[in-house]
């Protein structure tokens, strides 16, 4: 059997056990868990690079998992996200309970879940990958056991997540009944060659979309977002906001351009409508927020709206735009969250008012936050601008000009509330002027993320070529 195809996944499985065992070491001889976790992520990256020549062949493993350019590209995204989350956890460590081995282990199980989703070729793998990812996140969200808000976040996420998993499984069952199998080829053939697609198959598709809509926080499945974002530990919020959303959008991309492609005429208007609802809910909701984590939660709903807009085109250009958007979103969001983590202790909380005069206490943190927020808002020449431009262009091509108009209006709304944060950081007077110390690991990571925001925004050609190799 071609085990080389599974090398990165097997590496992750190995490291899940390594993290678990490392936690058992006696306190005096305990390894630095964050470096061990980073080592595991480096190991996975090496295995991915080693596997890279196999991507072009697109082979599948027992028709369950396939290694393609698409999966390889997204696995790189997820690995990068996990690496930054480890740095965030390092910075945040003080707040977390003692046994961090389990926390890092859950990060690796979440990463394994995203890898499975990236390679999936079967509806079973869709379910298992999502469960692996969200199970880990349920537990991580409640990790601050002493804080009622964290428990509340974990509880709300668990209950709503279970309901959405129920939708997903019911949808998969209906599709299985329609196609007689769960593999993507079987389902796609059933949709392609069916004389009339029965209503149950449509219902199955809608239920699967609902289950995934929960993951990317699309309206109306996003009610959990603000509370979970506010209560969960900030590194977990970053993982939720980037990793989970990216996984959901990627899964949608695979399903919509794969098994659901034959009935594109049915889901395209559906997604366009969802996109409008999500954009307005996220961006209008963000206007009233006073807590930066809640605000970022609402803004992440807004970004899900743009992702849905790109998906609703159903074209290759739309798929590429969504991938580029996710790449830009990854750098910008992680940069903003890392600044929030680095500053929150010194400024005394997560309220927006706490960020008054941040520029006078740490010019570096304020500048990174400024760049990250502008990139999220879509200001040229930063990464987020190119992502939004590509999504809007693909939507223009698909002929839904009203949707483009809604998207453009939302850019303006988002810019307003992002700039309000910037105003607080630069124009308002600080409560105290003591400088904020930024540890070296955090500082280097922030430089890398800023470099990412700038390079992805200015020098798009290599990334576009990279992404267009998907198909």
């Amino acid at each position, binding site marked *: 059997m071609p085990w080389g195809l599974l090398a990165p996944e097997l590496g992750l499985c190995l490291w899940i056990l390594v993290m678990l065992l490392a936690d058992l070491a006696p306190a005096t001889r305990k390894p630095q868990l964050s470096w061990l976790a980073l080592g595991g992520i480096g190991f996975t990256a090496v295995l991915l690079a080693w596997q890279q020549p196999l991507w072009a062949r697109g082979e599948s*493993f027992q028709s369950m998992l396939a290694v393609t350019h698409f999966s390889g590209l997204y696995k790189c995204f997820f690995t990068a996200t996990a690496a930054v989350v480890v740095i965030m956890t390092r910075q945040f460590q003080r707040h977390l309970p*003692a046994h961090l081995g*389990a926390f890092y*282990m859950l990060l690796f199980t979440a990463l394994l879940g995203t890898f*499975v989703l990236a390679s999936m070729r079967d509806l*079973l793998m869709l379910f298992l990958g999502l469960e*692996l990812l969200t199970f880990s996140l349920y537990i991580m969200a409640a990790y601050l056991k002493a804080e009622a808000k964290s428990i509340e976040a974990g509880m709300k996420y668990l209950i709503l997540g279970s309901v959405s998993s129920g939708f997903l499984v019911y949808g998969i069952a209906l599709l299985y009944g329609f196609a007689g199998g769960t593999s993507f080829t079987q389902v796609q053939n059933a949709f392609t060659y069916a004389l009339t697609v029965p209503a149950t198959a449509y219902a199955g598709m809608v239920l699967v979309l609902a289950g995934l809509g929960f993951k990317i926080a699309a309206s109306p499945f996003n009610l959990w977002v603000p509370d979970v974002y506010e209560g969960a530990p900030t590194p977990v919020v970053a993982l939720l906001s980037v990793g989970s959303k990216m996984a959901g959008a990627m899964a949608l991309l695979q399903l919509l351009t794969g098994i659901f492609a034959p009935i594109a005429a049915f889901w395209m208007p559906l997604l366009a409508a969802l996109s409008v609802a999500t954009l307005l809910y996220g961006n209008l909701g963000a206007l009233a927020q006073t807590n930066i984590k809640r605000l970022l939660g609402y803004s992440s709903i807004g970004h899900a709206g743009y992702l849905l807009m790109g998906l609703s085109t159903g074209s290759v250009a739309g798929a590429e735009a969504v991938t580029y958007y996710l790449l830009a979103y990854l750098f910008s969001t992680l940069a903003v969250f890392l600044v929030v983590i680095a500053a929150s202790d010194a400024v005394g909380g997560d309220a927006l008012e706490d960020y008054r005069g941040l520029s006078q206490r740490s010019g570096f943190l304020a500048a990174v936050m400024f760049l990250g927020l502008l990139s999220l808002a879509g200001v040229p020449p930063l990464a987020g601008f190119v992502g939004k431009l590509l999504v809007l262009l693909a939507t223009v091509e698909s002929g839904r000009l009203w949707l483009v108009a809604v998207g453009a209006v939302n850019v303006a709304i988002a810019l307003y509330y992002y700039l309000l944060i910037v105003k607080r950081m630069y124009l308002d007077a600080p409560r105290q002027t003591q400088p904020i110390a930024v540890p070296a690991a955090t500082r280097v990571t922030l430089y890398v993320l800023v470099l990412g925001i700038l390079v992805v925004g200015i020098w798009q050609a290599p990334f576009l070529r990279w992404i267009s190799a998907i198909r």
Partner: protein
Amino acid sequence: MAEAVFFYLFTGAMLAAAWSVVFNRQPLYSVLSLLVVMFCLAALFVMLQAYFVAALQVLLYAGAVLVLFLFVIMLLNLAPEALARMRVFTWQGGGALLGLWLAFLLARIFAASAQDEGALSAASAPRGSVEAVGQLLFEKYLIPFELTSFIILAAIIGAVTLGKREVPAKR
């Protein structure tokens, strides 16, 4: 003949126990009645020669799931007045609707299988054995099977970390 006798015996016991699950006022007795239901169901599986499914039925439902139910009920430790307030018949409308829906689905399945003689028996015949399940589990569904074990691992670790009482750290 003996088969018919055993079938009616187990089915009768199962229906009686199921009746007791629904109408017993004490949740504890309900769960114990459910245990009887599960055992009778396992016996029916044995009569269909699905020995593996029968064993799983006993191990998983009777062994694990019901013990969990018992734990939860004993943990809640409902007072008699709270039990008296719980009205069994609050949900009867919904239950009746669901029952009608189930009857409708079963009728459709039997109607379909009456047209296509043997479809039901052909679909269910060889799949209940240990061999057949093992073949599927360790060949076709090997990867999903192993992944499930990682999900369970994550859940166990999560339950332990979240449920553990935090010892004040020695600094």
